[in-house]
Structure formats: C-alpha cells, structure tokens
C-alpha cells in the first residue's frame, strides 16, 4: 500500500508566499524521526488527486492536512478544522475536479483533521517566495499540534522553552546549535 496508517500532508504553493506554509512544515518535519506508521508528504497543489483520492480507508485511519485557512484571525493563528467545517467546494484545489469532494467522500471512514493557519500574505497570481515572519514562527507550534494529534511526544526534541525565549525562525529553533 502506498499510504500507511497515518498520513500528514502539507498543502499549498510556495510560489505564493504564505501559501507555502504546508510544504514548509513538512520540510521541517523531515528533520524528525517519526514512527513507521506515519508518512509525511509535501503535497504541493496535488493533495486532491495524488493523496485524498488514493487513500485506502482499510489501511489509512488518520489524515492530517496542514494548510493556510482564511478565517479572519491574527496571522499565524492555528485552528483545527473538521471536514464538516468547510463549505462544499472549499477544498477542491485549483482543479475543476467536479466529480467529487474527495474529503467528503472519505470523512466517515478516515479521521481527518485540517490544521489551518491564518496567512498574512498570499501573492497569487504573482509569484513570490518565502513565508512572512508570523507564519515562519508558527511552524514549530504547528508541528507540536500535529505531533499531539498523532500522539507522538516530542517534548525533548523540540525544546519549547528555548523556542519561546529565542523567538527565532524555524531553522534556528531546530538547529543543533540553538538547543
């Protein structure tokens, strides 16, 4: 089977500034060693057709989607959403995949959590690389939320007290020198 029991997908496009938050979280999570039943994927824009429509509910029990979500909060705020919270059509990617709402189809058989972070700046259709400071800082918090959601205790690897004191970027928080 392609996908294991727990799938964590970072969605979004790094060419549109904060839209790259999901892939940036996954990039950061590659520095962690995770249990064998967990797969982390930089889904880019391909979530609906490369992942959501390919999950086997017999095998995959939990899907976590990390993405930006505009819900009118302060930039960098994190929220957990269920598929029911999304209006129909909200998660169709940019693709006219009208056949089905893939998440709606599997939501009763796979436990789906959407971790949405309020963006500060999305530049589409103009390309711009790099996250805003608020979202850069939200990466460690988001990872902690993800790890809590899948029941992995990483308190010793990501030292949150240090993180709070330093106010650094994700790179500095996870680099060996800063620990």
């Amino acid at each position: 089977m392609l996908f294991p029991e727990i799938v964590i997908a970072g969605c979004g496009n790094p060419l549109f500034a904060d839209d790259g938050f999901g892939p940036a979280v996954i990039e950061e999570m590659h520095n962690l060693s995770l249990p064998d039943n967990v797969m982390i994927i930089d889904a880019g824009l391909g979530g609906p057709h490369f992942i959501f429509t390919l999950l086997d509910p017999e095998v995959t029990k939990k899907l976590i989607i990390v993405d930006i979500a505009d819900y009118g909060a302060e930039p960098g705020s994190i929220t957990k959403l269920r598929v029911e919270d999304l209006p129909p059509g909200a998660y169709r990617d940019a693709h006219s995949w009208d056949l089905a709402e893939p998440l709606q189809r599997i939501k009763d058989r796979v436990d789906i959590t959407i971790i949405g972070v309020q963006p500060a700046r999305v530049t589409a259709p103009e390309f711009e690389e790099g996250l805003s400071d608020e979202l850069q800082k939200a990466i460690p918090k988001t990872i902690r939320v993800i790890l809590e959601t899948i029941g992995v205790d990483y308190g010793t690897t990501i030292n949150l007290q240090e993180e709070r004191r330093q106010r650094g970027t994700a790179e500095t928080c996870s680099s060996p020198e800063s620990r």
Partner: protein
Amino acid sequence: MSKVVEISPTTRHEGHSKMVLKVNDQGIIETGNWCSITPVRGVEKLAVGKTPEQVPKIASRVCGICPIAHNLAATEAMEASIKCEIPKDALMLRHILQLANRLHSIALHDILILPDLYLPGTEVKINPFTAEEPVRTVAKRIQRLREIGQTIGQIAGGDCIHPRNTRVGGMYRNCSDQAKIKMYDLAKEALPLAKAQMDLMIAILRNYQARESVDVGGMKVALPKTLGYHNQGYLATHAFYGSSSLEECPSWDIERFKEVRPWDWYMGEMEVSLEEPRYPIGGTTKIGTKTNPQMEACTGIPMYDGQPVEVGPRARLAVYKGYDEKGTVGQNIAREMEYTDCLYEMIDCIDALNPNGKVVADYIPDGDGALGWASNEAPRGTDVHIARVKDWKVQYFSMLVPTTWNFATCSAALTGAPWQLAEVIMRGYDPCVSCATHMIVVDEDNKVVAQKLIQ
C-alpha cells in the same frame, strides 16, 4: 446568423480554463477559442539569479499535477546549459520516475473521461464512482494502477509528488537491491491490469465513436464522424522520455519555434448570445455577458514552423510509431495504448538499472552562459524548458508547457463540431492548465467559524 456561447469554467480536467464558441444556427462551431484563465506570472523572473539547484524546485511548483515533468525538464535544461552529462543509472532512475508518473496520469485521465462515455450495449453513461458492477471492478483497477504508479515514483524519485531525489548532475541516491525488486514486482503486477484497462477503454471509445448521437444534459446531439479533427501537425521529442540535444532529437529545433501573443490568434470582445441552462454543471454563461478571449487568455501561442502543433500521446505515437488515427477518439485511444508501452519501457529501465552504480556526475561545471534546453515528454505532451547558467547562477529561464502548445491546436479542432461536444474534444488533450493558489476560505464573510482556536 452566428451566436456566441461560453462554457466557463470547463470541467473534468486539471486547472481553470474556458471556451468561447461562435456557432451557426445548427449549433455547429464556426470558430472556437479555448483559453487559460489562470494567470500565473513571473516564473522566468523569479528564476533569474537563483542557483541551478533551486530553479527545478520552483518549476515543479507551477503545476499541481505534472511536477515531475517540470522538475526533470528544468533539471536537464540546467545540465544542458552547463554541459554536464549524468551517469546512466541516474538517467534510468529518471526514466522510471517519469514513466511511473505517466502511468498514474493515464489512469487518472480514464476517470475524467469515463462520464462522457457509455457502458457498451446500454444507454447508460459511466459513473466511475458507482458501487455497482461492472464499473466498480474497473474503478478498483484504475485505483490500483494509480497507486502502483505513485509507489514506483516514490521509490525512484524519493517522494511521490515533488521528487526529492533529482538534482543537477544526476540523482542524490541510487535505490537499494530490494527497492529495485519491489519496483519490478509492482511493474509486473501492473502490466496485465494495464492491458485489461487499455482493452476495455478502447472498446468503450469505439462504442462511443459508432454512435449516431449522444446525450449531453438531456440534449440529443448528433455525433460527427470527424469529431476533433485538425490539420495542425504533431510535435514529439522522444517516444517516452525526452531529449536535450538536437543531434539526438532533430524533431525539436529551437530556431523553428516562435511565440505569438493571444490577440493575434483569439477572437476579440463579444457578447454571449446563446445560453443553455441544461448544459451539465450549472449551464453555460448567461446571455449578455461580455467575453473577450484576446484579453482574458493568459498564455502565449507557441508556433512550430509558424503553426500551432499538437503534443501528447498521439503526437508521440504519430512521430515515432506511425500511428495515424485523427480526431478525439483516436487521441484517447493513443493515450490508452501508452499504458502497456509505458510499462514495458519501465520494466526495461528497471532491468537496466544497476543499484550499485554511481548516480552523480564526477564533475559538475559552473556553466559559461551557454543556452541549454531540455524537453520532457510529460503525459500530456512535450514540456520544453530553456536555461542559461553562468558561474552557478541562472541568467535566463523559460518554460513551454504542454497544454500551451495544445490550446491553439485544440481551438482549431473545435471547428465543425456541435458546441455541446466542445468539452469532449478538449478533454481528449488531457489538459493541465497551470494551477493557482488554493487557500481554504472558511467563511465568505471572514467570520470566525472555527470552533477551537488553538493559539
């Protein structure tokens, strides 16, 4: 008296586009314009000054469904500019990755076109999501083929969507012996499935072709025997993979290529004068709506020898294997025929792969500013990237993506067809229009509906 009908957005393909059709009293298309309405700008500008390692990563983000073709074409354009030849085993891994992506893509395309087609012997159109047999078995087979494609791609490319294993100068790492065996087993498993799927799809497509008329949203539409015919010629650069050298691939010469602006090619401002609410998924655009394909089209029109050309599976089969069936059905059948071709080639590449061989070039030059190009035969056609690298910095970068080639060609192929079948013709090209952002908007009024704020 001609009338204007607009289908916007078009559905069951990747990306956002629309069709503006000038039709006669019988509803036959006189002039058809199919254009991308997704503005994606500035990749060329963004790439300048970056290192050759960064640009393929940027290029792979332009599209959500063909990141592999873009990644490979951009990497190889850099290698062509710096004149770096990669080891054979690295090339084999790239071939496997690319073919695995194609396997997934053909299977996905089956799901997208099946709702246009009929179960042979019945008047029932196929819903690939139904739980009823025989469609259920077919859907499961399609899913397994997609899954195998993605798994093999993941092994060869390091990640199944945005490959992490490719690099300028080769690949980061070779695969293990076990991984090679696993890829081989999966490809062997896929072969009979692909054969069965190909035979079934060809039978379904032939059944469609033989019909006098078809149903579109409750309208009975006469099916022309020349559905999707055009005289625009074909362009392909390799039977499977791609090329970055004119000696190796004389059929793509950058000197013979030119790009013109859409306003030379598309119709100007018009008003929609025909509306059909029964047309599937919300009907066509309302009467009186202003439309202006010249100004709204977001792509240039690439020309080869002064004419738009067709790229994709039929072009590959026509150029390299003497395939000659025209029209939409011929195009879809060509794509189905690539199922088994793609797996036989993949098995050959896996056979040829030495897991102990080196996969990075011994010497990777910094580049002297020479112009390099690389084509990659993406599932939906020739993807050409052009680059200039000097002192390990990209000075120039440009992408000619497959569907851009096909926009004008498909527009020409619309002429003479009933307007209700315009999308059927368009889907034959398996179009992938560059993607935009896809932020979730939780509530239109920006109201906080999230129940549980965490931080």
